[in-house]
Structures are given as C-alpha cells and as structure tokens.
C-alpha cells in the first residue's frame, strides 16, 4: 500500500545534524518531515553517545573556561588533519561554531561544567548536561513543537534522484511502503561504521573483529545511494576513527563505558606475547585514537593491556573487571598467550626500565632504554602481583568517507555544478573538514553548523 505526501523539506537522519536542519527549516515556515531509521528509544544516531561539542568562543561564555579563538581552533584542526581539510569549509565551520552554544541553548539544550576526568577539555569543549541523549530528547521535543513530522523506524529508504535533483523517496515502516516527495532533501544519515561488510571492502577480514562503539543503524545506505548517483566522494573507506576498547564490550552501542585507560600504566602485548608500540608516548586521551589502528594491525585484531598492582586506582574505573592473577604464567594462560613469551617480554621490559620519579599526571622521567620498542613515560617494572590484563579490540567510532559539499551544504557533482536541492550535514560530510585525525567535539560542531546551513538552504530552495 502506497500513500504519497508532499513536504518542503525532507530530512534523513535524526541525530544532531538532522535535528538541527529540521528545526532550522521549520523555523522559516517550511513543512518538514524527518525520517529516523531507529525506533524512538534508540533515536539520535551517534549523538546519543556523545557528550560535548567544540565551539569557538570568547572569554566568559557559559559553560566554557577561558577563551578559544579562531586562530587557535584553526591551528588545532590543521594539526590533527595534517592539512587534510577543505580550508574554506574549515574556516566556515569554526566561524559558525561561535553560534553553536547559543543556538543549542535557545533550543532547549542545557550545558554543564566539564565532567570530572575531562578537565583538560574545559576550555575548548562544552559538555551537554546529561550527555548526548539529553540533547537529542530536547531537540526532538523542540522539533515536534514546531510541527516537524517525525517518522521512526523508517527503513529501506530508496531515493529517486533524477540527474542531480532529488524527486521523491520510498521507505518501509512496519511492512508498509510509503512514498513522500520533497522540494529539498537534507541527508544527515551518518557514516557507515556499523556496516562491517563495507568496512571489510577496505580493511579485509580484520573488519569482522571490529567492535562498533555507536549506533548499529549507521549502515551508510544513504551515503551509498548518493555516491552511486554520481555525487562526489571525499575520503576513502580505509579511513576510520577507531580506538582501543575493552575486547569484551558489546558488538554495538558500547559507547563511552567500553574504554580502558590502563595502557600508559603498563605494557600492551599481542597474542604472541610481544609488545608492538610505545605505550607511554603521550597522555592517553591524545593516544587512544591511534591504538585502534595499532590493534587492528595485530593477528586476530586483539591486544592485552597488562599492568601490576601499582597501577590500580590510577585510571578510570572499567565496567568489567580485568583478568587477574598472582603470577604472570597464570595470567598468560587466562588470556591464552604463550607464557614463556609473556615472561620474556616482561623480563626484558623490566630490565630496560630506568629509575626516575613516577607521576602519571605528567610526562614523567620513567622510561625504558635499549629495547627495540621503548616506552617513553610511566615505565615502571611490572613486578607487583596481582597482575591484570584487559583484552583490547579496535572500537570503531566514525568513518571519514563522505560526500563533498560546498559552503551552502549542497552535495557536489564530480564535474559540474552542485545539486540544487540535495544537501548534506553531519558525519556524511564531516570528511570535508576533518579529513583525518581526531579533535574532540568537532563532529558535533560540524553537525550543528552544517545542520543549520543545510536547513536554511533547503528551506530557501523550497520557498
């Protein structure tokens, strides 16, 4: 059974970017329909798991500490992306991020001072009171009050694109097919990090051992349809943001609590019992993002973070307790790696440590010397039982591959003018700005900034 409905603006995806676009368009008077693939309880895409965004701001803006100006922000972005960014769009994002806090607060989102353990982000990042789901709830409430027509569990969305113009689409809801048409289409349906088949195309069989930290609904269906329709791709599928997380975390939606912060306090071995990277290179918040890739490169995509009793209480508590033992041999048996190999690795590591004063809150003097892979800081002998091991796996957070957009959020055609009525916001186009690397809170910033641009432009086109 097919029913047809017409809207000025159709928004695909109900995370921060989609909600921002829907609200912005509806505020201009446009009729807006928002399709969310998840059921109501799991709505909001990966926004549900987030907790902050990164706005440029002057001194005294609640809830920020200090100021964060344009130049510093741009420097940070250029540094983490190593220049892999569209400069014009990066500058636009940073300038517009100045209004993100006000916009969100005006739309019912509450902020708070930084969470404990995240104080180093207090100057640059604004924390949502209650986290991302609180933000999602507030924005849905606002959108519904504005009259945005919200449809949950809208699956199997099939876009009808003629040339570079959006015409209409069909979707399934509870075994019924519906067709809706819109003058403009805003695509804000996230990346494809929950699509292990797609990841496998780039990563090979290793992808099957990835854990997805966020929503299981980011399969990249809309992204794929835009690329298949000939819109310009940005980034490649082998680029993804993956961090080292507890290997026992749920396959999807493990979120923040799957983190394991003990790496800098001990050593990490692969399943041959060998170390493979400098665990003490820098503070963990600055390094956890590279460890996802490092572990993805090991056999069976697994690593084990090993610490002794001295490390207990020095890192964030974990949901699951570590595997523990009073002997290294028994610990090796528990994690199923060769005991003699682990003994040898720890013996060599202990012998290579240089005595110095230990301070886990500073880049301290404790390091190793003479190893093929040295540890730069926090290197103390692993000699005090009980010993602990956390299994680590790559936890994929987001993907970089997306569609190219212009400064009006219009999706770009490979050769020629941009589409006049298809727009993109959020993770689908974040790769334009964050081509690689990671900057805490930038994803939410891009979501809000390009959500506003896409909503405004989509409504303008519709009128």
């Amino acid at each position, binding site marked *: 059974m097919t029913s047809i409905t017409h809207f000025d603006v159709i928004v695909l995806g109900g995370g921060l970017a989609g909600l921002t676009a829907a609200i912005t368009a509806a505020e201009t008077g446009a009729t807006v329909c928002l399709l969310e693939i998840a059921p109501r309880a799991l709505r909001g895409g990966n926004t549900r798991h987030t907790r902050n965004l990164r706005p440029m701001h002057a001194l005294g803006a609640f809830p920020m500490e200090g100021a964060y100006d344009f130049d510093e922000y741009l420097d940070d972005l250029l540094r983490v992306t190593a220049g892999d960014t569209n400069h014009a769009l990066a500058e636009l994002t940073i300038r517009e991020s100045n209004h993100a806090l006000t916009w969100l607060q005006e739309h019912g989102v509450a902020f708070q001072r930084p969470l*404990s353990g995240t104080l180093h982000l207090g100057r640059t990042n604004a924390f949502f*009171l209650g*986290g991302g789901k609180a933000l999602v709830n507030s924005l849905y409430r606002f959108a519904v009050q504005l009259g945005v027509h919200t449809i949950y569990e809208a699956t199997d969305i099939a876009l009808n694109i003629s040339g570079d113009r959006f015409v209409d689409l069909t979707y399934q809801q509870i075994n019924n097919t519906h067709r809706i048409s819109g003058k403009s289409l805003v695509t804000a349906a996230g990346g494809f990090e929950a699509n292990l088949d797609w990841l496998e195309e780039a990563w090979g069989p290793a992808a099957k051992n990835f854990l997805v930290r966020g929503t299981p609904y980011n399969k990249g269906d809309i992204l794929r349809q835009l690329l298949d329709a000939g819109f310009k791709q940005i980034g490649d599928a082998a680029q993804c943001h993956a961090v080292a997380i507890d290997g026992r975390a*749920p396959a999807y*939606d493990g979120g923040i609590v799957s983190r394991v912060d003990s790496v800098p306090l001990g050593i990490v071995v692969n399943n041959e019992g060998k170390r493979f990277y400098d665990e003490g290179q820098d503070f963990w918040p600055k390094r956890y993002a590279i460890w996802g890739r490092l572990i993805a490169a090991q056999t069976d995509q697994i690593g084990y973070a090993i610490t002794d009793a001295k490390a207990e209480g020095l890192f964030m508590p974990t949901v699951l307790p570590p595997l523990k033992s009073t002997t290294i041999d028994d610990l090796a048996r528990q994690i199923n790696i060769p005991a003699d190999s682990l003994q040898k690795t720890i013996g060599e590591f202990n012998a290579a440590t240089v005595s110095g004063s230990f301070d886990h809150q500073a880049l301290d003097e404790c390091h190793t010397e003479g190893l093929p892979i040295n540890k730069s800081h926090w290197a103390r002998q692993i000699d005090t039982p009980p010993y602990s091991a956390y299994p680590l796996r790559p936890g994929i957070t987001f993907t970089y591959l997306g569609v190219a957009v212009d400064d009006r959020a219009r999706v770009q055609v490979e050769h020629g003018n941009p589409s006049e009525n298809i727009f993109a916001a959020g993770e689908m186009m974040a790769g334009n700005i964050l081509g690689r690397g990671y900057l805490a809170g930038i994803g939410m910033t891009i979501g809000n900034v390009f959500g506003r641009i896409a909503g405004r432009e989509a409504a303008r086109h519709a009128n």
Partner: protein
Amino acid sequence: MPTNQTTAEAIRVMTICNACRYCEGHCAVFPAMERQTVFTQNNIDFLSNLCHQCGACYQHCQYADPHEFGINVPAVFEQARRESYTQFLWPTFMQPAVLHGGKFMATTLLLAISLFFLAIVGLSGMSKIFVPQVNFYNLMPHSVMAGAFSLSAVVVVVSWWMTLRRYWHSISLPSPWSIRMSTYRAALASALTLKNLDGGHGEGCYESGESPSLWKRRHHHLVLIGFVLCFFATLLGTFYHYSLNVPAPYGWLTLPKILGVTGGIMLLVGCAGLFWIKQTADQRLVSQDNGYGSSLTALLFLTSLTGLGLPIAKGTGALGFLLAVHLGCVLALFLNFAWGKFIHGFFRLIALLADEHQKTQ
C-alpha cells in the same frame, strides 16, 4: 559482598555509571558515586537514599532499555531505599509496615477510628455522639486526647532514635558532634530547597517523561510547609491551652486557626498533586511498593480533610463522628511517622549530610 538481588543489581548499575559519568551534572548521586572506590551494601544504602527519584538520569541514559545494559538507576534505587528502611527499622517486628504499607495503613486507620469512636461512646455515652455539639471536648476531654498522643509521640521518637542511629552508623558517618556546623547547614539547605529535584538545570525532574517539570518539587514543598504549619498550630494550641488557659475551639482569626487552616489547605493541594504525579509517572521508574509510598500521602490528606471539616461540622450532629475519624487519622499518621514512609525524610537528610560530610574530607 552484596547481600541480596537489589544490592547486586545496584552495584552492577553503579559500576557502569561510574565508567560513564554523563549524569554527573544532574544531582548529588553521581558526584558521590565517583568518590566511592568500591560499591558495597553500605554505600548503596547511602547512594540510594541520596537519590530523590527525579528520573533525569533514566530519561537521558544511553544504556537504558532496550540497550543490553538495561540501566535504570531510579528504579533500582527506589527498591534499595525501601529495603534500607526495612533493614534499619526498629523494632524489627514492625518491618511488615514497610513491606505491606497499604495494608498497614488500612488496618491502623480502621482500628484507630474504631478506638476513638468507642472511646467517645465510652466517655460521653451513646446519647451524646450524634447530638449537635459545639465543643468537641464535651465528647472527649482534652486530657484524654493529649495523653493518648503524648504517649504515641514518645513511641515515635524512640523508634526514630533507634532506627536512625543504626542507619547513621551503617553509612559511616562519624559522631554527630564531630560534624561541622556548615555541613549541617548545607545538608539542611539541600533538603529544604529540594535542590536535587531541579535536574541540575533548574527546570525540574523527569518522573513523568522526557520533559522536565517543577511540579513534583512544588507539591512536595506544599506538603512539607503545610505539615510544618499544622505542627506549629498544634504546638501553639497546646501553649494557649496550658500557659494562657485559653482552650480550643479557637476563632477563625486566631493564630493557631490561621496556621492550621493554611497548613491544612496546603497539605490537601500538595498531597493531591503528589498523588496525581504518581499516577501519571513514567511506570518504568516506579516499582510495586504495596502502597507504602501512597499511604503517607493518603494519611496526610485524610488528616487535613477531616481536620478542616471539624470547625465546619461544629454545632451539627456530625461532629462526634468526624472527631473520631479525625483522631483516628492522626493516630494512624503517628504510626506512619514511626514505621511508614514518613521516615524517608530523615533517611534522605542523613544521606545529604553524609554527602556534604564526604565533600569536606
């Protein structure tokens, strides 16, 4: 080691919450949680009583159902709180008053009303009870009422003392004398303003769903202030009676009457509001409590209603019967003070005090 299922579930939930911490800004529970190094029966007794059941953490939880973690802090803490009231209650044979709160209320109410009815009949004779009366002391002398309720008050205070000192020690609070005055002030301020029902943003709590609301806080304020006004009205009445030799009933424009009537109306409105909020609450946040929670609201409501009815029934044949019902409600309320939901206020105050005390350590 956890002693029961509720505690085990509360510990599981706190372990996940402590690794997440997104709710830190909502209320006192989460910062307090972060101060604990391990979770035990004792600090679950503390944290669960610190929880004011505002629901914010549930509505905003990325790990709530249908997530496989199934986190629901308010629900498990409500259960844990009730178990802590049971566990520490003195005397222990009164524990069924917590486990079957509704039955306890109904039974005590029925018995107390009957008792006063029979007492009035016994003291003034069947002939007087349905005859229009102006002064209820003609039906039951002041000394009998004062005697009965003084005795009840002693039982209440002794029960409080025994129950609360056990709770106090179990959550590792030091001697009351060693706690700073400023700590008491801070805890009392949190309790009286119901700071922990404001959601952390001042917009209120989420017991009825995703939209914050200040109504639970407002209705609770009405009940508390109404109760305090009625309490002072009673004290003042006693003072008038014994020290000024001015016995009741008092005129509408006397101080005891003004306090009592104002308090009574506030209690009626506040209790009705709390009852309505409970009926419309998000059912995922509340668990079956066998009428334990509602019994206090119901008794406060009935006591106010019948109390306000007395001056209206003055000079009619209904006064005698209404007096028996009112005094029965008051007696049942006294029993609730000792062994019913009323003690939640003290448990929460002690938990707030422990929270403020820990902050100073």
